[in-house]
């Protein structure tokens, strides 16, 4: 190749990167892409089938049917994820209010994850141990923490990327109108 033309390669690479960012920005502006609310192809779909072991007991398998049956949260977490730690206290609070939360322990070490739950409290009904990240891949997990809202029929209704806190709960998850235990107690109080 002509030596002068070769010097254009960096510019070309930059143009491609810039184009990607431009697309992202555009999609962010129009609300299509929100880093804390990635549009998931899975929304409206049922939970993908899986067959994995439980975190607490490697012998015991867990399948999608173990989770389906009530409105629930599926929380993706790992001990290597710092943000998960920040969100953990709020998960404990939700669990104590009776919200069913299932855990997807993502690309993690079993021993470390068990210690984590022992230490920080265990808000999960049960935990799926996804060492290879296969279920994560099926769900299109972007990174931890991530939380999927699943209805009683096992349909994914919403996906939240990032830390789950009271604001997200109030503004994003409650408006879905699923029958949460919290909502019921509030209604009873009224």
């Amino acid at each position, binding site marked *: 190749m002509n030596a002068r033309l070769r*010097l254009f390669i960096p510019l070309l690479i*930059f143009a491609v990167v810039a184009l990607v*960012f431009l697309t992202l920005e555009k999609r962010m502006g129009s609300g299509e892409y929100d880093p804390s609310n990635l549009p998931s192809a899975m929304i409206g779909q049922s939970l993908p089938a899986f067959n994995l072991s439980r975190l607490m007991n490697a012998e015991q398998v867990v399948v999608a049917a173990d989770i389906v049956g009530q409105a629930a949260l599926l929380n993706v977490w790992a001990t290597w994820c*710092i943000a998960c730690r920040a969100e953990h206290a709020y998960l404990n609070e939700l669990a104590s209010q009776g919200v069913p939360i299932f855990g997807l322990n993502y*690309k993690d070490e079993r021993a470390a994850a068990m210690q984590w739950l022992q230490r920080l409290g265990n808000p999960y009904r049960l935990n799926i141990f996804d060492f290879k990240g296969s279920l994560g891949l099926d769900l299109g997990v*972007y990174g931890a923490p991530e939380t999927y809202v699943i209805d009683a029929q096992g349909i994914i209704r919403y996906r939240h*990327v990032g830390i789950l806190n009271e604001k997200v709960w109030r503004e994003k998850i409650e408006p879905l109108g699923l029958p949460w235990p919290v909502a019921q107690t509030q209604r009873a109080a009224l």
Partner: protein
Amino acid sequence: MISVIPEIGHLALLLCLPIAIALTVLPMAGAAGRWHLLQRSGPLLSSGLWLFLAVAFACLTYSFLHDDFSVVLVAQHSNTALPSYYKFSAVWGNHEGSLLLWVFILASWTLAVAYLGKSLPSDMHARVLAVLGGIAVGFLLFIIFTSNPFERNLISPPLEGNDLNPLLQDIGLILHPPLLYIGYVGFAVAFAFAIAALIGGKLDAAWARWTRPWTTVAWLFLTVGIALGSWWAYYELGWGGWWFWDPVENASFMPWLAGTALIHSLAATEKRGVFRSWTVLLAILAFSLSLLGTFLVRSGILVSVHAFASDPTRGMFILLFLAVTVGGSLLLYALRAPTIKPLATFKLLSRESWLLINNSLLAVSLAVVLIGTLFPLVMSALDLGSYSVGPPYFNKLFLPLMVLLMLFMGVAPYLNWKHNRLTPVLVRPWYIVSIVALLLALLAVAFLSQRYATQWRFGAFVTVTLSSWLLLMTLTHAGLKARRFARAKKLSSRQGLLSLSRSYWGMVIAHSGIAVMALGIGLTSSYSVQKELAMAPGAVADVAGYRFVLEKLEDVQGPNYSATMATFGVGRLNEGALINGLSIRLQPEKRFYYAAKNVMTEAGIHGRLTRDLYVSLGDSLESEQWAVRIYVKPFIRCIWLGALMMAAGGLLVVIDKRYMTRQPVRTDSPSGTVASNEQAMV
């Protein structure tokens, strides 16, 4: 009484814009048209820019220190109960303030170039200042139109502020952003030199020589900044980890890798006139990655623990700015970079070749980090689904590259410029050093395996071998060089050592720093012991040869938080008995910050070079019990010590005598004749 101070600051900030525009246009026009008056206007305009930005920054600081909650920014990020040193750091603990700091640091660098760079040819000097002015224009536009720190709420100013994010209430975080920014922005100077040289068409050894000290200063600040960030994550997140491959960490690491490559390739360009196109591209790259880092953190594209303040609406502006600066400079590069083959030639076994290998390895590492950081973004931009790459990806690809880099780093100083032969005299020390390193590693790993009651750790063996080999290769080279010099000049060996140049010692210390850091990383990941326990006062735990006794739990009051503080007595065990009593005291805390309603962990750490004892509190369990995490982390301090050694090495290079003289440098020195093989320096 409504203070007028923020308005003064606002006005000063607004006035910066025309000054910066003038700084961009006038010296550049002066250089093009050879109008001397305009050409020499740079220093005056730089001073003006610096002065007005200093006023703006001082006014914002004043508003923070005096709790002026009519300024929206202060109300959002400060609080009357906040100690005044945190009020001070709160100035840049937010988006708007940190940008103001960024541009203030840029103005400070510009001022330094304006007055320390007077020995430069005047057209070059004018162009460099103009490019720096142009960058300032971009950032000022961004601040004034999208992120004004002086926005006010005069109608109903709140009586109390929201408080600073408790994670940021820490000495490490007071210093981390300024150091990082000094590094980031410092690469703007290297960038400005590169652009000025491309415009002026003079990309020669003299250009490399001027760029070198500025780049090294920026690099050393960035090194300290990154190390401090890692140290902060270590003790403040209560997790015992020191690097997470978090996107924001990567954003600061990428310019560092590019900067490291740049420092080395500048050496080759200065000494031998080779790699000129590559060097200028690296200078553009280092600064572009600094901008990209700012863009990634500030635009909200990335979700990260570090992204304390982000806003997607600002992303477009930064993107436009990136397109102009980076796209423009790469276009200029494509049009003007020299394509002629360098006059100087070199053989495979020469320092040039090995610097090229070093540069390639650093470039590949950079690509690994860049791809790992951007890949998930690219995939979601193209709507190809969402992917994540975790620490396993980085570790798997990064470690082998670093091993190779260390091997080449050990040998490179032994090679001369231009060509070399592998004579027995040259190679003999390598054999000896390799055998000694192997023996040392065997001893060390045998001792550590026994001390920490673990199995034989292969990873530890490899790292100890490699790091001691690199350390010994580097120090042996210094010793041999000093002896040769002493013999030739009939000096004592001590005088011989002292007569080696500062920049040579800088290389020795920086390379040793890499060895020390690698040692720390290898040993701490192989031998760390961690235990999670439930402990009540009086409880005893024996971990890795230390006894930890929880002596008491008490409630303490901080200025803006309340805390539970545990006191641990710790002593060394020998065959089950305490040697020296419980002589070490650790006091971890669990803090509750009132205003932000946030719980934070403060770890209790007792550090020695050979090990850290680290205790942090989890949650309170029933009946006075607390969840407690105890870590014994061997040699973790070597990681930061190594980083400091690298920075110290950089400092020595900068204060080398050759850069201290203010005499004008000949610009016409033909590349290739500058270097003499004996005074070789990297």
